[in-house]
C-alpha cells in the first residue's frame, strides 16, 4: 500500500527567541523547546506542510510548529540550579501547560 511506503517525517519548525538573563560573562546556555501537545490542532503546521508539499517535497507525514528559546545564564549558576530555574521558567512562562509541552537542555 502507498501508505506503507510513506516515510514518516515529523519535522518541527521553530520560531526563535533569545533571552540574555545577565549582562556578565556567558558560560552557560539553556535551550528550551516548546511544542503543542500531540492532540492540539496546529493550523500553522498544517499550512506549512501544505506549502512545502506544493514546492514538491514528498514523504511528509506531519509538520508541527513550535518555539525555541536560547537563554544565556549567569556563569555562577551550577548545572542543577540552572536546570531548576529554567524548568520553572519554561513551566510558568514560556509554555502554557494546557496546550504545550516543553523540554529543557542545559549546555555548560
Amino acid at each position, binding site marked *: 500500500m502507498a501508505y506503507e511506503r510513506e516515510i514518516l517525517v515529523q519535522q518541527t519548525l521553530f520560531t526563535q527567541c533569545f533571552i540574555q538573563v545577565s549582562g556578565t560573562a556567558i558560560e552557560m546556555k539553556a535551550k528550551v523547546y516548546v511544542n503543542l501537545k500531540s492532540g492540539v490542532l496546529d493550523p500553522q503546521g498544517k499550512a506549512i506542510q501544505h506549502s512545502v508539499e506544493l514546492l514538491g517535497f514528498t514523504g511528509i507525514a506531519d509538520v508541527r510548529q513550535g518555539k525555541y528559546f536560547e537563554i544565556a545564564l549567569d556563569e555562577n549558576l551550577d548545572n542543577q540550579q540552572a536546570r531548576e530555574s529554567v524548568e520553572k521558567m519554561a513551566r510558568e512562562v514560556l509554555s502554557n501547560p*494546557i496546550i504545550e509541552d516543553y523540554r529543557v537542555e542545559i549546555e555548560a
Partner: protein
Amino acid sequence: MKFGVIVFPGSNCDHDAYHVISKHVGQPVDFIWHRETDLSTYDAVIIPGGFSYGDYLRAGALARFSPVMNSVKKFAESGRFVLGICNGFQILCEAGLLPGALIRNRDLHFICDHVYVRVETSDSPFTNEIQAGSVLRIPIAHAEGNYVCDDRTLDELKQQDRIVFRYCDETGAITEAANPNGSRENIAGICNRERNVLGLMPHPERACEDLLGSSDGRDIFRSLAATLAAAV
C-alpha cells in the same frame, strides 16, 4: 457602582468599553493602568480587547505578569465582577482565572465579522437580563479565538452550566458552519465556578449602538448593571 477598564500596553478596545459604561450603562468608570494595584474602589473591572504586549509569546501570556493582575485575582476572589473581552478572555485563561486556552483559529485567518452567539444560561451576573436561548449578533475580531480544553474541563463546564455563549447560526442552531474559529463545542464564552468572572471572544462593547450594526451587546452590560444594582 463603579467600573474600571484595565489598560495594558497594546490594549485597543479600552475606550470602547469606557464609552459603553459611561454612555449606555450611565455609571462612573475609570481607566486603570496595568501598573496600578489598588482596585478597592471598584465593583466591576473590564479587561478589554486588543493586543497586550503585542501578543508576544502567546496571546495574553505576558499581560498576566502585569502588577494589576495579582489585584484582579484578589478582586475576583472577593466575589466582585470581572469581564474579559477577546484579549481579556485570553488573559483570564493565561492567568488561570478561567480554564482552557485560546489557540490559533482553525483556518488561520484573522476574523473580523459579525457572528451570532446563543446565550446558554441566564444564571450569570452577565446574562441574567437575557433569556437563555436568545441569539445575539455581536462582532468578533481575533486570530486566536479557538477555544480548547480537555475532556474533564469540558464535562465540568457543562455540568456546572458555565458555558455562557456558543457560536450559532441566525436561528440559534449550534452548527459546525456557524463555528468561526474551530472552538470546542462552539464555545464563545465561559464563566468561572463562582460565576463572577466571564470571558468571551465576541465584542459586546462594539455592539451597543444601532449605527454600528447591532445593539445586542447592551444586554450583557445591562445584566451586569442590574446585578450590581441589586448587590448595592
